[in-house]
């Protein structure tokens, strides 16, 4: 594990959550410290986004302890959200607004003044290469442009914790490098980054700590080197397959191809 500096910014103790009869989280324990980039991985339906939504106060009815900057979302206070930046998986935005209008609005919700928010948004989009479309409606943007707006909106207020769900989706190779580098710099300055993704190569490279969730439980928690040692596999992808008990990919692929060839 990487260096632990000071107090944890996030602390989950025996977190459990169920939708109806379906148990989604089965006792998750996790502490996150400043400066960590946590690769939060797991198969679909493992409970990754539920964890994030609980910490953001979007989902209620959980059992166990949740502390974000020492505050419990259940208690209804919202101040802790000022220190969180969030990029959801589905790029939902009010896309009939222009990038300028949207970003200014979001900045104001985080407590910035309209002028501060607009100026910061303008400069960030300029650096991202989107200065020409600052006053165009988001609905006309390509997927990569939307993603850049979304990333900007999560950073305007200089948050201490970032929740990123597939933050690189739609970005071109050059932009991917920019964002990866930016995340590393942000972590260096002591921000905690919670990074969910299905692309194992990226997680392997940028994470200082990897948390693997399966069936609502943490199956592995440690640096990539530690995980590699434990499972005797070479890449995170293989580790992932092994730990989630998935080893029939060859068989499934063969079956698919045999169906394809019927015609």
């Amino acid at each position, binding site marked *: 594990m990487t260096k632990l500096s000071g107090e944890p910014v996030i602390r989950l103790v025996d977190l459990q959550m169920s939708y109806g009869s379906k148990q989604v989280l089965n006792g998750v324990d996790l502490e996150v410290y400043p400066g960590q980039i946590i690769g939060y991985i797991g198969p679909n339906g493992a409970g990754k986004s539920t964890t994030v939504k609980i910490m*953001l*106060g*979007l989902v*209620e009815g959980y059992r166990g302890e949740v502390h974000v900057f020492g505050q419990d979302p259940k208690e*209804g206070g*919202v*101040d*802790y*959200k*000022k220190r*969180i930046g*969030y990029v*959801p998986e*589905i790029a*939902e*935005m*009010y896309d*009939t*607004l*222009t990038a300028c*209008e949207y970003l200014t*609005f*979001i900045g*104001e*919700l*985080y*407590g910035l003044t309209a002028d501060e928010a607009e100026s910061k948004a303008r400069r960030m989009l300029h650096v991202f290469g989107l200065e020409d479309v600052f*006053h*165009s*409606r988001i*609905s*006309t943007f390509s997927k990569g442009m939307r993603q850049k707006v979304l990333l900007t909106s999560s950073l305007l207020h200089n948050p201490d914790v970032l929740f990123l769900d597939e933050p690189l989706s739609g970005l071109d190779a050059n932009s991917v490098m920019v964002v990866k580098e930016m995340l590393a710099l942000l972590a260096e300055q002591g921000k905690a980054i919670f990074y969910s993704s299905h692309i194992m190569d990226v997680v392997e490279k940028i994470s200082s700590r990897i948390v693997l969730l399966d069936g609502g439980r943490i199956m592995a928690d440690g640096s990539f080197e530690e995980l590699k040692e434990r499972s005797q596999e070479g890449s995170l992808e293989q580790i992932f397959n092994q730990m989630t008990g998935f080893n029939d990919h060859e068989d499934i692929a063969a079956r698919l191809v045999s169906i394809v060839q019927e015609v």
Partner: protein
Amino acid sequence: MREMRTLRVLDRFAGLFERMGVNYTVMRRILQVKLTMDARRVPILSNRSKKNQKDTPDESNQFLRSLWLYVLFGGFSSTLLLAGDNYIFHTSLLFGIMMFMIMTSMISDFSTVLLDIRDRNILATKPVNRRTITMAKTMHIFIYLFFLTGAIAIIPLVVGLAKHGILFFLIFLLELLLMNLLIVVLTALLYLTVLRLFDGEKLKDIINYVQIGLTITITIGYQVLIRLFDITAMDVTFKPAWWQVLLPPIWTGSAFQVLLQPGTATNAFVLLAVLSVVVPLIAFLAYLRLMPALERNLQKLAEPGSHSGSKGGGVVRRMARLICSTPQERAFFRFAWTMLGTERDFKLKVYPTLGFSIIFPFIFLFSGNFELENLGSGGSRMYLLIYFSGMMLPTIIKMLGYSSQYKAAWIYHTAPLENMNPVYKGTLLACLIRLMLPLFILEAIVFTVLFGAGILPELIIVGVALQFYAIISFLIMGKALPFSAPFESMQQSASVRILGLLLLLGVLALLHLAALQIPYGGIIYGVLLIAATWVGWRKAFAVAN
């Protein structure tokens, strides 16, 4: 983003909101964003027109521009107030009409406001307290409800003030407010119930049908309301009955009766009048508690719908095999069949049109002074009015070219098709059989009842004529690939082509009438039509390429 007058009015109550634990500055900002988005609700075409979109000057709200329709409707309804001072009857009826209009518009126009799931991800993740978000949503609905109610009630209010005096006016205002509360609560309850029992897709379907129903009601409603004078002339005596407790408009009527004619106030009236005040207030309190539950259930809207099932797939398949000549044509027939039945935007635009198609022949039939008894007596050729059920065919065929998912039309170009004939033909067939045929059969049954079974052979000829008409309409209107252009790109102006096609429909009806004047004329006309239609189905689509 512009500064809105509505918000400036709201500013006066800033202190009140702050006292309720709402962060007024943030709420105001959210409302400003929401109203701006509403003004732009008409979606944007495509990337092509990107340049025109920068700071579009035209941001006047579409909704506000459509309000005159409601003013007109209120105007017609207000004639009820002129009819006399039988309050329990007239005001109940008036409130019944207004409540129906407001409730249906609420469901059709504001469902986007109530059911916006983006709010959850965008607003709830920010440091904004929940009360502020809920209040912003409530005020957003309130602002629209205010304009809507204002539009529909302005003329009745003025008429009421002039005819029945200031007290009537004040009661009217108060009851309007209470009924609006009730409507908001009922709508939210409806959504909540549907979301609890079914899934989001079902709710979207229900909203869609309400929208279709509203469009039809508004159009046909004028016809009915104009004739309302006859009803109002009647002297209706009011008998209390238990089921009246279930009808909110009657509560309102009772309130007028009790307060304005205390002499007539029986216990039943007093009870109903009290209900009109108490129920909305209780309901609103319950609503404030239910709001979080609704928000939670809204999540279902984002989830994929559960198994819609492959109902009727076999029937459509058999039908396709029966009437289509090539496998590709069959595929497009089934594809179009499904699209016609499931695309909500398409249904919203087309189904009301079908409604007009049903009533047009009857409007013509009854606008002349026909005695029903004479219709069956033979000799009358009025049944040829059934041709008018085809009036909407050109419009519908034109609509086939549009879709809200127009971008998916790339499949036509990437599929290995030699030409587009099967696409056109399969789609037109599906359109005729799924949309036009049931309508025509319904119409034919009614006409057979009215005119006697003797007209059946003629009706069959009309059926062929309408097919022929559809092919011609297709040739003139619809050379676009089906479902391949956005609705917004549709030309609003009723084109000359549609006018010409309407003339053609009249010509076909007149030809039929003329043919019937000579011996065997009907048969000759029929045979010629069948031949022309047969050629049409074979040749027309190749021409279209």
